């Protein structure tokens, strides 16, 4: 029987020849990703339920990125305990604060392989589908269960396919694609489903761009969000893993619940307006709204290419004096690469304030909180009321290009006019 990528990954992980949507399987976990907050609570739950050992410490990756640097002694105390537990359990794949945001680190350090089943303690775990992995967020009790048993139940999802056609116009990038999809089809289009992004444009998109799109797969409801693992995937993984890597895609003739075909040749920069990710408008409809904060960061859009695009707009220009430009590269590797290429210098000259490579203001967890009635334009993934820590503030989501242009003008601005 022909299967989609989700079906193939779940069939293999559950030791079956074939699975079909609607079925519940118990699948063996290839790798479990946990960040600081999810590890702490899950580990305590596992111990409370009488289990003392992690099923396979080599299959776990622990990444410290949500609450760093610690803001108070209570957090610091939790972090100290996490480090103790990591030692006690013999977890080799431990990345303490400063290495980067969990999803970025997972990809960079070679923990994501095509076809693997990788649940994680963060909803944006869907990011790894950019490299062809079946990855999704789970909560603390499910994580505790996986830590103890190494397996978990999964409902085999229906799969939908987005065929991406055309060539992206100047001044648009991956974020505009996924926001356009959310705007057109709503945040429910992929609810509890697996997505496969395919088509000529999908093949052309870089791994950084694929990661941005898969990262936001969860924002349109997806359980998994895949790009086929192709030559670009192989190239990306070449020096990152010593594990065998194979191409991974759907079987020809696999069946899809729905197929959406879209042409992006006339795409305009897109902006998700408060307070929902599918409240999407074209840049021309929202230009001119004053912003007090512009944030280039998060697991969605703070990779090398993202910051290069922002820098291309900010080069030789300054952020508006009434707008705070916050830049948080997604990892130390990104930091190093943009510092070597001069992009970091450009951003600093433009007036950027830098933060350590962690989640930062995205989830309102540590810094960059807005005042009442302030507005931010961000490269992040969510704009729910209160998401960035204050329910009396407003968050717009956009591409790095649009955030950079908006920082310059102090109001939401079209990046295309800054590109020759």
């Amino acid at each position: 029987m022909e299967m989609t990528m989700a079906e193939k990954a779940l069939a293999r992980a559950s030791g079956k020849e074939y699975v079909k949507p609607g079925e519940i399987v118990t699948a063996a976990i290839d790798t479990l990703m946990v960040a600081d907050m999810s590890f702490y609570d899950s580990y305590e739950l596992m111990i409370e339920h009488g289990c003392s050992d992690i099923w396979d410490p080599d299959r776990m990756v622990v990444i410290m990125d949500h609450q760093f640097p610690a803001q108070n002694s209570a957090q610091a105390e939790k972090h100290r305990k996490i480090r103790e537990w990591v030692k006690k359990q013999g977890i080799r794949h431990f990345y303490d604060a400063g290495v980067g945001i969990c999803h970025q680190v997972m990809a960079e350090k070679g923990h994501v392989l095509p076809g693997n089943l990788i649940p994680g303690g963060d909803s944006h775990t869907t990011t790894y589908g950019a490299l062809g992995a079946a990855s999704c967020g789970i909560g603390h009790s499910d994580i505790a269960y996986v830590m103890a048993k190494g397996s978990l139940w999964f409902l085999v999802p229906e799969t939908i396919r987005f065929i991406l056609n055309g060539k992206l116009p100047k001044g648009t990038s991956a974020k505009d694609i996924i926001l356009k999809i959310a705007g057109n089809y709503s945040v429910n289009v992929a609810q509890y489903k697996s997505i496969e992004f395919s088509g000529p444009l999908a093949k052309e998109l870089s791994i950084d761009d694929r990661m941005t799109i898969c990262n936001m797969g969860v924002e349109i409801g997806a359980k998994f969000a895949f790009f086929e693992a192709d030559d670009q995937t192989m190239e990306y993984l070449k020096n990152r893993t010593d594990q065998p890597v194979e191409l991974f895609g759907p079987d020809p003739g696999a069946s899809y619940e729905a197929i959406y075909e879209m042409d992006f040749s006339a795409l305009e920069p897109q902006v998700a307006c408060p307070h929902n990710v599918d409240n999407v408008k074209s840049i021309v409809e929202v230009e001119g709204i004053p912003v007090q904060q512009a944030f280039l960061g998060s697991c969605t859009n703070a990779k090398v290419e993202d910051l290069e695009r922002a820098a291309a707009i900010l080069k030789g220009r300054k952020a508006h004096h009434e707008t705070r430009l916050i830049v948080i590269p997604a990892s130390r590797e990104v930091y190093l690469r943009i510092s070597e290429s001069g992009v970091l210098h450009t951003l600093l000259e433009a007036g950027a304030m830098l933060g350590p490579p962690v989640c930062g203001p995205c989830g309102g967890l540590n810094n960059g909180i807005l005042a009442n009635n302030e507005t931010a334009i961000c490269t992040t993934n969510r704009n729910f009321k209160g998401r960035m820590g204050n329910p009396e503030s407003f968050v717009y989501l956009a591409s790095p290009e649009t955030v950079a242009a908006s920082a310059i003008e102090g109001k939401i601005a079209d990046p295309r006019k800054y590109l020759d």
Partner: protein
Amino acid sequence: MIIKGKVWKFGDDISTDYLSPSFGMEEPWEERKKKILHIHEAFTKGWQPGDIIVAGQNFGCGSSRESAPANLKRMGIGCVVAESFARIFFRNCMAIAFPVTICKGVSTAFKEGDILELDFERSIVRNQTQDIALEGTRLHPDLLKIVQAGGILESIKCK
């Protein structure tokens, strides 16, 4: 299991940032619970243990934080009946044994303050105030077992 209570109504896309806001996250429960579902002011002031939530599409969208359903459970909310649920929230409800039911048409069949009675296993949703009965989606038997056992961690036996 029969769950009965007074209904509070919510719309579509009720996110985990409403169910478990980041602001005030480290405050004591007595303070924190006042901020849960802050987008519905009357609810934050008036909810009582035993009350029930009726909502539209995509309830629980957003983060993987298990505190979203755990907060409702700790408040004593009887159940959530919605047009649809976001995947991770739904999983977390199974994992901590908090009853949720998918029921098409529920958001129009209830007004705030109506009395809802849910037959959880059979997925029958009754509006006692307006004398309407709806049939929701039955939970997969494997998942029903997890909920009936009291959550996913009740089945791990390491000792």
